């Protein structure tokens, strides 16, 4: 029984996540930025790096960074400044990136990730710092030249650097899912990895289990989806272990992910490691973040998914699966809570969200914010069921019809569709008497002890009433009437 070579090793993964801030203007100048806008139309002398221009902080970026820091349980730096990271590249017009080096705005936090059939795991956040994005280089549109679009130059980013706390691709995937959920709840980034508003680089190394010394780390870039991050990591771990087992040495390098092949390949070696010559940015005065400012930002923050999860599973008594689906996005959670303003039936509200509403949105590829029905209308349908006025299956018809006529009340629609249940006992008794009179033989069998025949009589009553008999009251009456025969 030989142990698999992969079981001998322990994997160490840290992630660097860049997220574009959803501010109205750029980090250090007033240009707008919209993904997909015509090239070089969202620029100014500052973002173009013209001589003699002076950058100026965007207050909103500081607020957004503090929000993320608080959401990640970080310490917020009281005093901080920016730094220049110098490198030469055609889409970086100034020749340096404005970033934070020695004084990141947030440090020393953590988030919790959910793992299948395991306790949540805590992943440390080393730091979060503010910086700016570079422009874009297009290599394939012109045969002889590289084309530069500077619209993205100067777009505010926060970089979230994790501790090397992750052990495999699945944990990295869950970590990214949490980060995306947080930035979306906070409304600071749209989290769209395909459009590049959330980007991730992974630092991966392997070492023999129990070793105290980390292996040589390799950086993997260019993964454009969460699944690809997971795949790239799993591939890279396998590659490194196999290389070591074959007696090779892992070299410090940057690799790129090839999504088609599901492999990674060398982008550049770190031997001639870049020398960024960081120094304090003299053009931007330092920043002092007061406790009053932090308190103010805290006030503006919505309830975060973890707090909602706790509330839904304890206070509302929902199961973990349902709670997780409901907190998936802030908008879904908001909608759910708005239904609760009109009904006390929490379970029913959760069920409607989990089944009919979600199914309809998925089918139509709609976002909850585009949903035509108001939360109050869902509560109306719930009230119809709870009041015995419509059956659960009829309620589905009411729901479908309401989407077509969102201006009408649930009860009106139920009436128009003739779905209101008959709970008037006099009406019900007529159908029951008719059903019993038509089946004297079955009545005799019932009297002889075949209790299960109640079901058959109920079926007849439902048929006679064209499905409008309130089943609860009707079945009670059927039994009572049979017993009197």
């Amino acid at each position, binding site marked *: 029984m030989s142990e698999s070579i992969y079981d001998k090793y322990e994997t160490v993964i840290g992630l660097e996540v860049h997220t574009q801030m959803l*501010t*109205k*203007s750029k980090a250090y100048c*007033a*240009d*707008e930025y919209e993904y997909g806008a*015509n*090239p*070089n*139309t969202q*620029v*100014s*002398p500052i973002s*173009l790096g*013209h001589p003699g221009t002076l950058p*100026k*902080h*965007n*207050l*909103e*970026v*500081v607020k957004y960074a503090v929000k993320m820091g608080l959401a990640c349980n970080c310490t917020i730096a009281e005093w901080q*400044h920016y730094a220049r990271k*110098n490198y*030469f*590249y*055609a889409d970086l017009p100034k020749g340096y990136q404005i970033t934070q080096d020695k004084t990141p705005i947030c440090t020393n936090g953590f988030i919790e990730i959910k793992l299948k059939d395991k306790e949540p795991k805590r992943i440390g956040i080393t730091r979060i710092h503010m910086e700016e994005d570079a422009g874009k*280089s*297009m*290599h394939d549109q*012109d045969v*002889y*030249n*590289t*084309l*530069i*679009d*500077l619209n993205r130059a100067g777009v505010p980013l926060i970089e979230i650097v994790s501790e090397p706390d992750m052990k495999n691709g699945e944990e990295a995937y869950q970590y990214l899912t949490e980060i995306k959920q947080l930035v979306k709840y906070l409304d600071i980034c749209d989290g769209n990895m395909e459009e590049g508003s959330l980007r991730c680089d992974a630092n991966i190394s392997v070492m023999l289990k129990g070793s105290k010394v980390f292996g040589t780390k390799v950086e993997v870039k260019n993964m454009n989806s969460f699944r690809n991050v997971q795949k790239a990591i799993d591939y890279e771990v396998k590659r490194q272990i196999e290389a070591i087992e074959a007696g090779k040495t892992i070299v410090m390098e940057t690799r790129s992910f090839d999504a088609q092949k599901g492999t990674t390949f060398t*982008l*550049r070696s770190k031997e001639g490691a870049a*020398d960024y*010559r960081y120094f*304090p940015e*003299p053009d*931007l*005065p*330092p*920043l*002092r973040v007061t406790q009053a400012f932090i308190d103010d930002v805290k006030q503006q923050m919505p309830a975060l998914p973890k707090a909602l999860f706790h509330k839904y599973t304890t206070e509302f008594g929902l199961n973990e699966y349902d709670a997780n689906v409901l907190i998936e996005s802030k908008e879904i959670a908001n909608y759910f809570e708005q239904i609760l303003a009109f009904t006390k039936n929490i379970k029913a509200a959760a069920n409607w969200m989990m089944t009919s509403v979600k199914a309809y949105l998925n089918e139509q590829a709609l976002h909850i914010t585009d949903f035509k029905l108001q939360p109050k209308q869902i509560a109306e349908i719930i009230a119809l069921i709870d009041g015995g006025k419509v059956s659960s299956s009829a309620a589905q018809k009411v729901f479908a019809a309401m989407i077509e006529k969102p201006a009408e009340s649930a009860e009106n629609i139920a009436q128009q569709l003739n779905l209101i249940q008959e709970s008037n006992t006099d009406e019900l008794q007529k159908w029951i008497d008719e059903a019993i009179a038509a089946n004297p033989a079955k009545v005799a069998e019932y009297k002889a002890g075949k209790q299960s025949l109640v079901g058959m009589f109920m079926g007849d009553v439902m048929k006679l009433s064209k499905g409008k008999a309130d089943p609860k009251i009707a079945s009670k009456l059927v039994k009572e009437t049979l017993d009197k025969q």
Partner: protein
Amino acid sequence: MEINNEIIDKLADLAKLDFTETEKVALQKDMTQIISFFEKMNEVNTDNVEPLIFMNSHENILRNDEPKHEITHQEALLNAPDKDSDYFRVPKFLDK
């Protein structure tokens, strides 16, 4: 500290500049002088002294998040040595 050829080559590379051998010799001399001038400062004890980063006491000079459109697309490309109707054009390069 002596500035040797290796350091000159590294600095030239970082600054994207090319020098002839004669120029390098001159640079070596100049830069050794500059460095030794700054080394004077090492004579002062700076233990427990916070580095002075900013020359004035300004803090929190911030602007509100209000977008402005300052220049047109044509103006943006006006000073470019090479361009097409949409983009800045640079010699073809890959990597990164």
